[in-house]
């Protein structure tokens, strides 16, 4: 008898749960596919922290609905990317995908999201293709394209009156995209790129190319490196005595998260990015304070991108009043939003990439300090995007 009672209760509970889900009051399932191990683990953590900080600020709910997280470590491994993203799409049946740092992995995610028509928000990976040939209504990005900081650096270099430039990067997609952006901005301003140098990824033996730069004596050098390669390049460049004769400029990643290791060699370097360490705006200060309070560490550009990914999602959900079935309303609203980001307000382009101010920053001590706005409201050209 008692058993029968229990079964009835259980059935009732189940039936109510199903009904509740149908009405859209169950939790929204968010799949976080970020690196939890490997070189980019720290970046993954910052993005996740930023995302969750925004959700917490909304009382743990978006558009009145509970949030349930599903997590997969993508290991920054493109070969495993399709399997990993399908764990979230097929096994966990998530409503929204958020990820990731590595461009190769993000491209696989974009493909899977496009095929399964799952919402995808990319909180870092800068591959131009994601909001270029791969673009789709259900894919947006809260970060940047590799082209954007490159282009802005080119504009600034031309404004400074430099005429002949050389570029140097790893021989891989991100580097080629940044260099292309730089050349576009620089040549539009009347400069000319005389030679592109590159090193196989992830080789860090630069001495031969530094000698080449010294021999050619261009007015300015544009570099795209990140992490360990950025540290070594900047130190080698200074050790070769080139800093005094040929100014070095770069995409922000040249000096982001690497300043402690670069030390004196990086002082005074000019780089362009959509964030700077000391943006003295009330919005940024409030964000940094909340972040430091919640996670006992300093917010960085990756935390901002995670935070903004949640803001974009929230805007879409609010427009549809939390009803995931109204997909068109959500995707349209996500494109129309003006994001009140710690980096400054930005909108999204038709292709789904931020139209944002790119800042010129100067290295002082262990900070990339804001110097000026390099280009206002810069939109990626989204070449190859047909929508």
């Amino acid at each position, binding site marked *: 008898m008692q058993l029968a009672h229990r079964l009835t209760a259980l059935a009732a509970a189940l039936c109510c749960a199903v009904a509740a889900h149908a009405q859209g009051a169950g939790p929204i399932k968010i799949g976080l596919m970020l690196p939890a191990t490997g070189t980019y683990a720290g970046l993954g953590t910052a993005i996740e922290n930023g995302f969750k900080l925004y959700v917490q600020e909304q009382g743990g709910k978006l558009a009145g609905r509970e949030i349930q997280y599903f997590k997969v470590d993508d290991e920054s491994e493109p070969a495993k990317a399709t399997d990993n993203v399908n764990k979230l799409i097929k096994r966990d049946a998530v409503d929204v995908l958020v990820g990731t740092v590595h461009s190769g992995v993000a491209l696989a995610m974009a493909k899977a999201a496009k095929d399964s028509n799952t919402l995808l928000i990319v909180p870092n990976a800068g591959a131009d293709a994601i909001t270029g040939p791969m673009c789709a209504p259900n894919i947006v990005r809260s970060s940047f394209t590799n082209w954007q900081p490159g282009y802005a650096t080119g504009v600034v270099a031309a404004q400074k009156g430099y005429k002949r430039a050389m570029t140097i990067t790893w021989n891989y997609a991100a580097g080629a995209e940044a260099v292309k952006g730089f050349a576009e901005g620089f040549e539009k301003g009347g400069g000319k790129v005389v030679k592109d140098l590159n090193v196989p990824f992830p080789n860090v033996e630069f001495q031969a190319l530094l000698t080449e730069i010294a021999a050619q004596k261009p007015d300015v050098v544009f570099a795209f490196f990140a992490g*360990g390669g950025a540290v070594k390049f900047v130190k080698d460049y200074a050790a070769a005595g080139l800093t005094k004769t040929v100014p070095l400029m770069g995409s922000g990643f040249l000096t982001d998260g690497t300043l402690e290791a670069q030390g004196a060699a990086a002082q005074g370097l000019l780089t362009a990015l959509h964030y700077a360490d000391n943006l003295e705006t009330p919005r940024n200060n409030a964000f940094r304070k909340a972040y430091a309070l919640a996670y006992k560490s300093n917010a960085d550009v990756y935390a901002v991108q995670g935070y903004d990914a949640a803001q974009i999602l929230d805007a879409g959900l609010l427009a549809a009043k939390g009803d995931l079935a109204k997909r068109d309303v959500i995707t349209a609203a996500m494109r129309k939003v003006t994001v009140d980001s710690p980096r400054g307000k930005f909108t999204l382009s038709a292709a789904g990439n931020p139209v944002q101010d790119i800042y010129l920053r100067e290295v002082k001590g262990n900070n990339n300090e804001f110097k000026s706005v390099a280009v206002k409201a810069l939109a990626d050209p989204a070449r190859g995007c047909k929508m």
Partner: protein
Amino acid sequence: MDFATFLVQCLNAVQYGLLLFLVASGLTLIFGIMGVINLAHGSFYMLGAYLAFGLAPLFGEQFLLMLVAGVLLSALFGFVLEWVFFSYLYQREHLQQVLMTYALILVFEEARSLIVGNDVHGVQAPPWLSGSFALGGLMSYPWYRVFASVACIAIALALYWVVNRTRLGMMIRAGASNRDMVRGLGIDIRLLYRVVFAGGVALAALAGMIAAPLSSVYPGMGGGVLIVCFVVVVIGGIGSISGALVASLLVGFVDTFGKVFFAEFSGVGVYLLMAIVLVWRPEGLMKRGY
């Protein structure tokens, strides 16, 4: 390219080649003499770099003393490692050797991540080596790079002397060509191998320590070095120290001038060199020439 630039590029090539030799010599010792394919060799290079990062603050200006301490620590580490893991590998197939040494790479990387973290760190060159000198008005050249080259030459000479002129060297060469016979003559071959392995680890770690101020220390730094080292060992002839020296310098030159003249194909040059050498002399430039 004018003559001055050409000379500077030659200097770059020699300097890169010598540093490569230092890592590859340890690999060729272990590979050629003990017959173990050691994929974890790059990790020993990384170990050295992180040792330099950890020890530098303790030793301050005593850079050379720090190198000695690092070499002793890594040799001890190699000694224990051979005892616990590698001594079981000599009679096994190459596949099993590859599997175990690959597993060691994963363990070392994860241990590095847990102990030091995933950030990139710089190591300061000692103050007495931190300056640089002008090179024909073209660019300046750091003294530390000169020091690294001189250190590599000194170590190459010392290695040559040990292998060819000492009793230990004689035993090592004998052990490489006939393990059982050497044991029959009353030499403790297990201990001998343990010493050789420890020496190989110490060489790689020393290379890592010397390279640390040049290259900074970062996750995964052993991986890149490992592949070039295998290329050097294969070109030079497996187990040959002098072959490794010649091959390192060749690779240094091909890499340096490849980057300058054929920027788009710079990654291919070294492997092309290897392919040509293997077609011409499948056993490598010097077969067991020591």
